[in-house]
C-alpha cells in the first residue's frame, strides 16, 4: 500500500510531468496470505467432507428417532435412582476423586509452569521441557491413563482415577498457570530482586501473590471439567457415579443408568454455579458487562462495595521521619487485626481445607491398594511403541475417523456460533433484548456436559461416530459463540462509527467493519475448538464412538498391548501440535 503510494507521489513530483499515464495501482497479494486462504479453504473443505462422511442420512435419522422415541416411551416411566444413602456415598466418591486429582495436578503444575513461563524459565531448554510436559499430558486421555495404571492397583481402588485426572489435567493447568505468570507486573519482582532476593524468594514474594487469583480460577475451572469427565472415567472402573452408571448400562438397567446420568448432570450444573460464585466472592471479580445477569449481581453487591471503599481519604499522612518509637508500643501491633477481609479470607481457606480433607477421607485412598510387584512391569510395558495387532493402516484409518468427527462438529458449531455469537455482541445486536436472548442461549448451551450427552446418545441410538458428532457440535456452539461475541465486542469501534457516519446499514457495518476485524480471532477460536474436539472425540471413541479412542480403550487395559498405547499417544501429540502450529501460523498471517 505505502509502496504504491510512494510510486504515485514520485511520479507526481513537481516539475516532472508524468512520463506515462498513471496506471491504476495493482492489488498485491502476499504469498503467505494466499497460502493462508488456501489453508482455510482446505480446513473448511475437510470439514464439509467430514460431515458427508459421517453417514448421516434419512435412514439413520429414522433409525435414531425410532430408538429415541422407543427409549423415552419405555424408560421415562422406569427411571430409578439409587437410595439417598447410596447416592450420597457415590457422589462423595466422585467428588473425592475429582478434588484430589485436580489438586494433585495443580501442585505438579506449579513447578512446570515456573519452567514454562518465559519470564521465570531458568534456561530455554527447560522452558521447552515444561511446555513439552504440558502438551504430552494434555494429549493422553484420562480414561486411557486410568485403564493403564489400574493394573498396578487393587480392584476397586480410586487411586487410578486420581492419577488419571492428576496427570491429564497438568496440561491445561500448567499452561494457564504459565500464562498467568507471563502476565504479571514485573515491577514488584524486580524490587525484590533489587533487595537481594533469590529466584525462589522473588517467586514466592513477588510473583505468587500476583498470580494466585488467576490460579484459583484456573483450578476451579478445571475442577468443573473434571466433574463432567468423571462420568466417562467410570467406564475405566474408577469408582463413583460414573462407574455406577456404566455398570447399570452394562446390565441393561437403562432406568437406573439414566437416573444416575441425571444426577451427574445436576451435579455438574450445581458445581458450576458454586465454582463461579466462589470465583466471584474469593477473587473480587466484579461483573462489568451490561447483560441482565451482570446487572443483577452488581446491584446485589453494590452496598457492600461502598462499605469496602478505602479509608485512605481520612488517614492524614504525616511525613515525619521521627526516630523509631520505643518497641513496647509496637509489640501490641504485631497481631494482625481481624478485619472483615481477613475474616472472610480465613473462612474461605478453612472451608476449602475442610472440603479437601473430606475428599481425601471419602475417596478412601489407601497405600495398601498399590500392588508393588506390578509397578515396574506396568511402567516398562509402554516401551517399545508398536502398532500391535491392528496394524498401521487400521490405526491411521481410525485417526481419520476421529479427525472427521472433530472437524465436522467444529464446522457445524462454527456456522451456528457465528450466527448466535454475532447477535450476542453488543456492537452487532440490534437491541439489548436480542443480545440478552443470544447470551442466555449460549450460556445454556455451554452448561450442557457434551460428554454425558454423547454417552447418552451412544447408549440409546447405538455405537458410532454420529452421537459424538451431534454432542460435540451442540456443545461447541456455547464455547465458540461466547468467544466470538467477546472478540467482536473487542474490535476497534472507530471503523464502525465511521461507517455509521457514512450512512451504512447495520448489515453493511457488520460486513465491512466488525467481521474483518474479528476474523483473525475467529480463525484462532475455531481451530481451538477443533483441538478440544479432537481430544473429546478420542475420549468418546473409548466409550463407543470409534476412531483412535477405540484402539486406545482396547489396548490400555492389557499389559502386552501397551506399546500400542504409546504409539497412539505419540500420534495424538503430533496431531495436537500440528493444529497448534497451523493456528499460530494463521494468526501470524492474518493478525
Amino acid at each position, binding site marked *: 500500500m505505502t509502496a504504491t503510494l510512494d510510486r504515485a507521489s514520485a511520479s507526481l513530483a513537481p516539475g516532472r510531468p508524468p512520463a506515462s499515464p498513471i496506471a491504476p495501482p495493482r492489488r498485491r497479494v502476499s504469498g503467505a496470505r494466499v497460502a493462508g486462504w488456501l489453508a482455510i479453504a482446505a480446513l473448511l473443505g475437510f470439514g464439509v467432507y467430514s460431515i458427508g462422511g459421517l453417514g448421516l442420512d434419512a435412514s439413520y435419522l429414522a433409525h435414531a428417532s425410532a430408538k429415541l422415541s422407543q427409549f423415552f416411551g419405555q424408560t421415562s416411566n422406569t427411571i430409578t435412582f439409587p437410595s439417598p444413602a447410596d447416592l450420597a456415598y457415590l457422589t462423595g466418591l466422585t467428588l473425592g476423586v475429582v478434588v484430589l486429582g485436580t489438586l494433585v495436578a495443580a501442585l505438579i503444575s506449579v513447578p512446570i509452569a515456573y519452567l514454562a513461563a518465559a519470564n521465570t524459565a531458568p534456561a530455554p531448554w527447560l522452558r521447552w521441557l515444561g511446555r513439552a510436559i504440558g502438551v504430552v499430558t494434555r494429549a493422553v486421555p484420562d480414561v486411557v491413563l486410568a485403564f493403564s495404571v489400574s493394573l498396578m492397583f487393587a480392584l476397586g481402588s480410586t487411586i487410578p482415577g486420581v492419577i488419571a485426572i492428576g496427570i491429564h489435567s497438568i496440561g491445561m493447568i500448567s499452561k494457564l498457570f504459565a500464562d498467568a505468570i507471563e502476565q504479571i*507486573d514485573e*515491577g*514488584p519482582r*524486580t*524490587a*525484590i*530482586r*533489587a*533487595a*537481594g*532476593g*533469590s529466584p*525462589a*524468594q522473588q*517467586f*514466592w*514474594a*513477588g510473583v*505468587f*501473590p*500476583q498470580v*494466585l*487469583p488467576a490460579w484459583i480460577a484456573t483450578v476451579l475451572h478445571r475442577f468443573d471439567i473434571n466433574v463432567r469427565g468423571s462420568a466417562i472415567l467410570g467406564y475405566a472402573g474408577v469408582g463413583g457415579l460414573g462407574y455406577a452408571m456404566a455398570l447399570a448400562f452394562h446390565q441393561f438397567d437403562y432406568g437406573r443408568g439414566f437416573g444416575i446420568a441425571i444426577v451427574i448432570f445436576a451435579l455438574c450444573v450445581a458445581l458450576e454455579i458454586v465454582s463461579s460464585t466462589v470465583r466471584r466472592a474469593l477473587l473480587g471479580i466484579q461483573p462489568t458487562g451490561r447483560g441482565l445477569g451482570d446487572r443483577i449481581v452488581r446491584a446485589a453487591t453494590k452496598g457492600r462495595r461502598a462499605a469496602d471503599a*478505602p*479509608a*485512605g481519604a481520612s*488517614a492524614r*499522612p*504525616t*511525613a*515525619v*521521619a*521521627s*526516630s*523509631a*518509637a520505643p*518497641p513496647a508500643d*509496637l*509489640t501490641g*501491633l*504485631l497481631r*494482625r*487485626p481481624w*478485619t472483615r*477481609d*481477613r475474616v472472610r479470607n480465613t473462612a474461605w481457606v478453612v472451608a476449602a481445607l475442610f472440603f479437601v480433607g473430606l475428599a481425601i477421607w471419602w475417596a478412601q485412598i489407601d497405600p495398601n491398594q498399590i500392588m508393588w510387584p506390578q509397578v515396574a512391569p506396568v511402567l516398562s510395558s509402554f516401551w517399545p511403541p508398536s502398532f500391535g495387532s491392528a496394524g498401521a493402516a487400521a490405526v491411521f484409518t481410525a485417526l481419520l475417523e476421529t479427525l472427521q468427527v472433530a472437524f465436522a462438529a467444529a464446522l457445524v458449531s462454527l456456522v451456528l456460533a457465528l450466527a448466535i455469537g454475532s447477535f450476542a455482541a453488543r456492537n452487532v445486536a440490534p437491541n439489548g433484548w436480542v443480545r440478552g436472548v443470544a447470551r442466555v442461549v449460549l450460556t445454556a448451551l455451554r452448561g450442557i456436559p457434551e460428554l454425558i450427552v454423547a454417552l447418552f446418545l451412544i447408549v440409546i441410538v447405538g455405537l458410532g461416530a454420529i452421537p459424538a458428532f451431534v454432542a460435540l457440535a451442540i456443545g461447541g456452539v456455547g464455547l465458540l459463540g461466547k468467544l466470538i461475541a467477546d472478540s467482536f465486542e473487542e474490535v476497534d469501534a472507530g471503523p464502525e462509527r465511521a461507517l455509521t457516519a457514512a450512512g451504512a446499514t447495520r448489515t453493511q457495518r457488520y460486513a465491512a467493519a466488525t467481521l474483518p476485524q474479528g476474523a483473525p480471532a475467529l480463525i484462532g477460536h475455531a481451530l481451538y475448538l477443533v483441538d478440544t474436539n479432537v481430544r473429546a472425540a478420542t475420549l468418546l471413541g473409548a466409550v463407543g464412538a470409534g476412531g483412535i479412542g477405540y484402539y486406545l480403550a482396547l489396548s490400555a487395559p492389557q499389559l502386552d498391548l501397551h506399546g500400542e498405547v504409546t504409539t497412539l499417544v505419540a500420534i495424538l501429540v503430533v496431531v495436537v501440535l500440528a493444529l497448534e502450529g497451523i493456528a499460530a501460523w494463521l494468526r501470524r498471517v492474518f493478525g
Partner: protein
Amino acid sequence: MSTTTRPAPVIRVTGVTKDYGSAVGLRGVDLTVNRGEVVVLLGLSGSGKSTLLRHLDGLERPSSGEVEVLGESVPRLRARQLRRLRGRVAMIFQQFELVPSLTVLENVLTGAVGQLRGPRLGLGSYPRSFRLRALAHLERVGLLARAYDRADRLSGGQQQRVAIARALMQDPEILLADEPVASLDPESSRQVMALIREIAADDGLTVVCSLHQVDLALGWGDRVVGLRSGEIVLDTPTAGLSKTKAMEIYGRVTTSTAELQLEFTGALL
C-alpha cells in the same frame, strides 16, 4: 559536608558503555560518589538515568567499563555475592513496585529477604524481630496505622512511603531512587523528597536519585550530575548552580521554553 575532608568513594563508575544493539544506553560514563553524598541525576527521559542506576544495583551489566559499588566490582559478582551486595543497596522506583495484594507490612518485610534464607510468604514466615523492625520503619514514614491494609488501597504518595520503609528494612548503605516522585502530585512529591532527605541525613545514607525536574533538584541534593543521550554533560555541587546552567543539560532548547515545557510536564505528572 564532612565527607569532603575524608573522601571515601562508595560508588566508582569508570568508562561504562551500555549498548543495547538498537540504541546506546550509556556512553563512557564516569562517576564517583562519596559516602554520605546526596547526588541527583538530572536529565530528560531516555537520557540514561535509569540505566545508570540499574547498573549500580547489578540489574544491568555494562557492555564495557567498570562499576564498583562498596568496594565490589558489580559486573564480576557471582549470583550469591551479587545478592549480598544488593542487600546493602536499596532501591525505590517510580511506580513504587509494591505487591498489590499483600499487606503494607508484608511489603515492607520483603525488603529483608536478603537477610533471610528461603522463600517467604505470609507475615508469619518472618521472624518476630523482623516484624517489629518493619513496624518501626512504618512508624518512621508515618504509616503505622495502615500496616495491615492491602498495599493497593493506599494513595500513590503513601505507597511510595511504604516503598521507602521497605528500602529501610534492608539497613542499606546506599539508597538508589529512580524518579521517585514522577508519578506523584506536587504535595506528595514534596513529602516524599523531604522524607528521603531526612532519612539520608539521620542514617548517613549515600543517595543517588534520578529526577527530571530542575527545581526539585536544585533545592534538594548536594551535587547534580546531568545526563544527555547517555553521556554525562554536567557534574557540579548544587551550591552556586544556577537554574540557567542546569537547564543547559536539556540541550538546544532555549532556557525559557525548556523551563515552560518542564513545568508543564511536571504539572501533568
